[in-house]
């Protein structure tokens, strides 16, 4: 690439962001389908019965336990 061409390349604008260029959320990717077989749907169905606010409180309780376990694991090293 000569110097002029390299300048042109550097001055090229990045392609503008286009939301419609993304695959749909429902896009079926064979790799994702393999991972999907391991998803515990009973947990998801239970969560869907709750309001977002109830989910956030449940999540907070679960995460307190996760952080406690991490702390215990770190202090026992």
């Amino acid at each position, binding site marked *: 690439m000569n110097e002029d061409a390299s300048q042109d390349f550097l001055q090229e604008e990045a392609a503008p962001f286009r939301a419609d260029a993304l695959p749909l959320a429902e896009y079926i990717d064979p790799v994702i389908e393999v991972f999907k077989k391991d998803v515990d749907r009973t947990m998801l169905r239970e969560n869907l019965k709750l309001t977002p606010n109830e989910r956030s409180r449940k999540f907070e309780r679960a995460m307190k336990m*996760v952080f406690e376990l991490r702390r215990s694991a770190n202090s026992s090293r």
Partner: protein
Amino acid sequence: MSTPETQFSNILALLSEAEIEFILVGGLAAMAHGSAAATLDVDVVYSRKPENIAKLVKALKPVSPYLRGAAPGLPFEFDEKTVRMGLNFTLTTKLGDVDFLGEIAGGGTFETLVAQTDRRMLFDISLLCVTLEKLIQLKQAAGRPKDLNAIAELQALLEERNKLSE
């Protein structure tokens, strides 16, 4: 080094009370939609308007924001100039870890993403949260191997939610 506990509700309350314009994305947004996955930090897309940056800097000052994973003692100051000169910040604070994204792959800025959000009540706080459909697209656009499980779970969640509305 001890693992700080992320105080999710306190972080969101801090941002909300300071009237900062932000959109909840990442693991907490997934939880808001019904995901059962754990997450250790708060991810938000913030508006880069000067007045919003000023509010963000002021609100975070008391919780000592610092670059996550960086060596201690660096001359890092989370001030308006730093935020204007930067874009995405992965921070640790006294309340835990927070990622402030000026732009997100597949979603763009706050102003472009805001059309694909809905207002949800989380931790008794009303927040803008990215929609489930958009969250899946964001994870797809990120293209990280670690997100494969998350995409699978979110798509399963979307299928389950659609079944309920049929």
